[in-house]
């Protein structure tokens, strides 16, 4: 990227080489990269949401294609925080920072995960580990009946969760919002006021697909979360609304598949841009998006992303 536009961005205290990161749950460095950590096409790695206890996830089918999108109901399948910690040395070679996505059925579960992780990182001789830059509180997963939806959709509950998590860590604290609300600004404000360093948005939209033969819900969980290009204009609007209302940096996501679309997120106020569905459809999409983003800036004779951020929000 030498000689090209400056793609570095800052999420609070965290400096990233470029704005393209992976959306939680859609990329696994251990499974995908294969050729060593240097080939990871993201500036930061967000593993799949981890919960206090192991979760087996939802019954299948869990995923399928929809027009210009993907619907999924994985159900936060994950091995739990202890197994996650035991596995950290496998990520030790990673040259990019890691942001741990945290989920839970109750606020106390989120706090327990952050506390446990901080203990592990503070312990002397804790063993090899990648650089843990912070936490993304996934208060938005629409798939778990008893899960995050209520917190993300309830600004007061979100405020309390972020306030309680804030003193537990000096690392970056991010709230990832659900779009399944009438007003996206209220939870965003609550999270920012409670001390979140950044806000991620959006998670998936609650949706339904039927089996064409049986006319019954196709997914084992019946409903699922919609992502991909189908949701991009709505995600873009929500990023813009939140950018106009809070001062913390935003990680914008929802259907981004090209450099221009990433640039649009940034023009609507995003600092970083996460990519999910596009990577699932094409493992080379992230690298391509990054190249295209650089080319978009060069073609517009822009020196860096600060020149673009929020331009869509101005009156003139």
């Amino acid at each position, binding site marked *: 990227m030498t000689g090209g536009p400056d793609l570095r961005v800052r999420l609070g205290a965290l400096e990233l080489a470029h704005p393209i990161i992976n959306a939680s749950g859609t990329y696994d460095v251990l*499974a995908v990269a294969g050729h060593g950590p240097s080939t990871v096409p993201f500036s930061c790695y967000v593993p799949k949401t981890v919960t206090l206890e192991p979760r087996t996830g939802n019954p299948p089918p869990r995923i399928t294609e929809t027009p210009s999108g993907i619907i999924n109901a994985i159900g936060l399948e994950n091995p739990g925080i202890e197994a996650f910690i035991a596995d950290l040395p496998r990520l030790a070679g990673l040259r990019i920072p890691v942001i741990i996505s945290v989920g839970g059925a109750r606020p106390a579960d989120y706090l327990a995960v952050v506390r446990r992780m901080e203990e592990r990182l503070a312990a002397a001789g804790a063993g090899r580990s990648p650089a843990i830059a912070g936490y993304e509180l996934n208060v938005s997963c629409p798939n778990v009946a008893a899960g995050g939806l209520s917190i993300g959709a309830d600004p007061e509950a979100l405020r309390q969760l972020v306030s309680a998590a804030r003193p537990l860590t000096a690392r970056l604290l991010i709230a990832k919002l659900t779009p399944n609300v009438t007003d996206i600004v209220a939870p965003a404000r609550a999270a920012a006021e409670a001390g979140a360093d950044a806000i991620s948005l959006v998670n998936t939209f609650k949706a339904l697909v039927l089996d064409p033969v049986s006319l*019954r819900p196709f997914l084992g969980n019946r409903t699922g979360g919609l992502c991909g*290009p189908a949701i991009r204009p709505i995600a873009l609007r929500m990023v813009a609304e939140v950018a106009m209302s809070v001062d913390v940096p935003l990680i914008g996501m929802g259907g981004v*598949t090209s450099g221009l679309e990433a640039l649009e997120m940034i023009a609507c106020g995003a600092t970083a841009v996460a990519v999910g569905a596009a990577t699932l459809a094409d493992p080379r999409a992230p690298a391509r998006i990054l190249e295209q983003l650089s080319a978009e800036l060069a073609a517009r004779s822009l020196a860096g992303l600060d020149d673009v951020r929020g331009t869509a929000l101005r009156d003139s």
Partner: protein
Amino acid sequence: MSAAPDRPDGCGPTGAVVVPCPVVEVRRFADWSLVWIEAPAVARAARPGQFVMLAVPGAAFALRRPLSLHRVHGDRVALLIERRGEGTRRLAELEAGAEIELSGPLGNGFDIATTCSALLVAGGIGVAPLQFLADELRARRIPVWTFVGLRGKRQLPLLTVLDLPRQTVATEDGERGIHGTVIEALDASPAAAEAVEKGAEVFGCGPLPMLVALRDWASMHHLIGYGSLEAHMACGTGACHGCVVATTRGYLRVCADGPVLPLQVIGERTLAARGTP
């Protein structure tokens, strides 16, 4: 290969190659296309039972379609594609000279390291990966019996592209070979009795109800059996946990823990899963 069926938590396959590759030959017939692709990196690493994820040409946004490796010759791989929906229709229309993006080889494949004799049982398009398996077994001079079950007349053209050792055909409408399901054919055929006599390992691919019947048939005859399963996929590499099937060992990812699983892990919950045809 890190992904084994007894390691449901194992990481997915690594080293999957993602490349645009030239289509070198296409044979279109009835509902199918036999597509040969020049893909040296995939061909060299491929093992029978593995699959590739194929980008749908001309689609604005589409998940890749999982397709089994049907044959491997030198630097070329063949896919046998049955037209079902929009994606396979577009893939089946590929012409020689086109470029196609694919990732692979993916999945665990059939483990034939200790196989002394093999009974291959296919249902319809499930025969696709079994051809590659048969080729590999034949190259190792391992005795093979194959059974191909077809719905009926409409599926007969499939037989024209197959080259299977000691092949028995069964059709449900009685158009060709034994009249009945492929499992009924196993019960009726002296070739199957011979395979049982030799203690052959059973390798199956086809619709889930067929695999369940094959599980019961194999266990009745005290044979070890494996089946290749299907599921809707997104990443194809084990990352998204989207393609799980419910087994007696819990949820297993078809793309990374499979697609080949011991027939014994197919249980009531596997069949009960909604959306399964």
